[in-house]
């Protein structure tokens, strides 16, 4: 038994309106640099859909995650150590830029500098942000937003091809005849990370204190095996620096007790952050259970109940500060995953034990209830639809429970019951005992679950202990002694003077800086000559 703390996230998909604020603020914070134009540490997909990068869930193709070999041992799907090193000169399972999308910009200067009196309206043209050449926009990180193009492509969604053929046939991609929901995705910061296990240089690691998975930029040698091994395709190659980069769970913010930037700016307030204690020694066994459908229960068993005196004793012995134990006890993530059991992991069958979980959306079911001419406020009608209609329950099961539709249905029943229970409670003050029985929860539990899902404030949604309090003195000293940001490095996202000048196209002139046009080839932060994203400049 070795107790560890993990900072984890739960997202309530019913509340996601697909506004992409999380993606945009994340990009502005972390990946608005040359080399990461195509990179979205946080992206929001529309499901059903093929996702970003294209068909990333198709592990037959991309070889991400783990699988059991013939003897029942856990092995990386991309092969063993020797096999991986044998493919180091050319990795056959690496997505290329076209599997993501070609980042583009527009020559907006054409509009600004157009002379007066033109007979035709000037038109800005898309240009590749990589080569500066004119391109036609054919794909993007969010091309399928709101089921765009679904009638052509969504049938090849790996979650649909994995469904039984009759069920898949019932998902019709016709306007207003199918269901949809948004799926925001970040790095899962897995308990059994495939990317870390595949990194030949040992540059990727899981932090002992909080379980955040990071890439050591000084030790990464660009072997690019992590990209293949990650089944969620959330490790990216920075093509300017030649190094791997990934979601950092905003560790500088987490260490300071603040939520990640995606959570902080989430308009729907659907993200929850908190600690989960788990037993590191139990991870391998949990990831190796024979039946994929047992993985959910196995992962839940790896977590340790923070209210259990035995867990508290272990945590204290392991040197975890009291603040962390208290934070784990107040963790909304623990409550959603283990108390109410309404949060589910994304694709548990990849066997990485992911740590960003999801409350599955009830809204597609409610739409189906309405479409069937039933009453979506009536619990019996909703229960009936969940049990009998199966669509989209089976689809959600492919995403969250390795195809176990009953497990997803159980969660949806709880959400539907909560809805009806609170409706009765609010409208006529009655307590619907039969609903409590149907889902095996007490009225009090349902009400506290409702509170957490519907009205929890900032401090209840984000329960983050600050960095070790024993470091407090060092913190104070550091904060007082330096104004430098540790992210102000070559290729880093910090706002160094040079980086700021590059980003905002500043030019120095007569002791002043002003926005202006840069030459096409400018020296970048890392000293390399590179193309500036200003396609109106003269080509050299």
């Amino acid at each position: 038994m070795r107790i560890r703390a993990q900072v984890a996230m739960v997202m309530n998909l019913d509340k996601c309106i697909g506004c992409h604020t999380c993606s945009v603020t994340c990009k502005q914070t972390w990946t608005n640099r040359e080399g990461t134009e195509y990179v979205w540490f946080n992206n929001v997909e529309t499901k059903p859909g093929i996702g970003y990068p294209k068909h990333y869930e198709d592990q037959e193709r991309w070889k991400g995650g783990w699988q059991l070999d013939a003897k029942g041992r856990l092995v990386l799907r991309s092969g063993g150590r020797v096999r991986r090193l044998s493919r180091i000169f050319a990795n056959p399972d690496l997505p290329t830029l076209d599997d993501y999308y070609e980042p583009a910009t527009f020559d907006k200067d054409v509009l600004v500098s157009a002379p007066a009196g033109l007979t035709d309206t000037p038109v800005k043209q898309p240009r590749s942000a990589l080569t500066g050449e004119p391109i036609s926009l054919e794909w993007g990180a969010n091309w399928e937003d709101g089921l765009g193009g679904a009638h052509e492509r969504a049938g090849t969604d790996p979650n649909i091809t994995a469904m039984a053929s009759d069920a898949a046939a019932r998902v019709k991609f016709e306007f207003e005849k199918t269901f949809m929901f948004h799926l925001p995705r970040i790095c899962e910061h897995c308990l059994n990370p495939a990317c870390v296990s595949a990194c030949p240089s040992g540059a990727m690691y899981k932090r002992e204190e909080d379980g955040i998975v990071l890439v050591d930029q000084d030790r990464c040698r660009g072997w690019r095996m992590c990209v293949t091994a990650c089944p969620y395709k959330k490790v990216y190659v920075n093509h300017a620096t030649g190094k791997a980069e990934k979601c950092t769970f905003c560790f500088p913010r987490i260490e300071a007790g603040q939520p990640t930037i995606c959570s902080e700016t989430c308009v729907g307030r659907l993200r929850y952050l908190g600690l989960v204690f788990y037993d590191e020694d139990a991870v391998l066994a949990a990831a190796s259970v024979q039946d994929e459908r047992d993985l959910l229960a196995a992962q839940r068993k790896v977590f340790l109940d923070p209210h259990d005196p035995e867990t508290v004793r272990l945590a204290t012995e392991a040197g975890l500060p009291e603040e962390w134990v208290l934070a784990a006890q107040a963790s909304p993530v623990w409550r959603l995953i283990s108390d109410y059991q309404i949060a589910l992991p994304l694709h548990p069958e990849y066997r990485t034990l992911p740590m960003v979980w999801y409350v599955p959306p009830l809204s597609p079911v409610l739409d189906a209830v309405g479409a069937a001419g039933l009453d979506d406020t009536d619990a019996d009608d909703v229960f009936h639809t969940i049990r009998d209609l199966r669509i989209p329950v089976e689809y959600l099961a492919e995403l969250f429970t390795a195809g176990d539709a009953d497990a997803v249905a159980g969660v949806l029943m709880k959400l539907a019951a909560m809805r009806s229970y609170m409706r009765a409670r609010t409208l006529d003050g009655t307590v619907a005992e039969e609903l409590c029985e149907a889902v095996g929860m007490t009225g009090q539990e349902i009400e506290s679950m409702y509170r957490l899902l519907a009205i929890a404030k900032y401090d209840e949604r984000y329960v983050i202990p600050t960095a070790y309090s024993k470091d407090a003195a060092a913190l104070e000293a550091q904060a007082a002694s330096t104004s430098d940001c540790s992210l102000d490095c070559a290729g880093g996202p910090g706002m160094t003077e040079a980086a700021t000048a590059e980003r905002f196209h500043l030019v120095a002139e007569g002791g002043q800086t002003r926005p202006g046009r840069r030459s096409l080839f400018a020296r970048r932060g890392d000293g390399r000559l590179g193309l500036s994203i200003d396609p109106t400049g003269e080509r050299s």
Partner: protein
Amino acid sequence: MNTLIWIVVPYACLAVFVVGHVWRWRHDQFGWTTHTSQLLESRILRLGSPLFHLGAFGVIIGHAMGLLVPASLTEKIGVSEHVYHATAVWGGTVTGIMLVAGLALLIARRFVNGRVRRVTTTMDKVLYVALASMVILGMTATLGTNLLGEGYDYRETIAVWFRGMFWFSPQTDLMAGAPLVYQLHALGGFLFLALWPFTRLVHVWSAPLAYLWRPYVVYRARRGAPAAVAPAPATVRDRGMHDIRH
């Protein structure tokens, strides 16, 4: 002149090779990478890169055999001159052709593919020119002189001079008598070593063999002081703005 070319320049190059690596390792861990461009172009690379790398391994082993193993030793263990010569020429030719084909493909993709062309640095261009000229000279020596020509026994001259470098007693007259193509290849080789630490070739020293033995999941404790604790927005809200000001 002989002293300059066959003693001063080689030792100077070796010194740059060693000192350059130490300097780069200490000051540029961030730039120490393969600089992979497979993300931008995969089709040509998938053929060219393995050809180039495997060819390069063969060529390096061949050079080690030819230069480091004295002819007297191979004779002692019963390898006849004829067998050695055949192995060296044919082995050298096959791996050399792999190397040439691989390098040609890798250079071609730098020209053909606009994305890769854009990320090609000046140092990359210098490296490609240096590699290409070394390979051409080497192939001329192997194919032109030893396979098609009358042959030249470098093991009695160049190899002896080369090994002399390690005992600090290189015999320059041995090199002075070698054919021009061999002279250029040997001199170019040392200049190439001097270029090495400043290019992406440094990734060779990071060949991840330790990966074969290490545990899969790497855990690491956070180093150094953590970030300063910022007040949570709720604290700010509850304290009111006048508290914050002082």
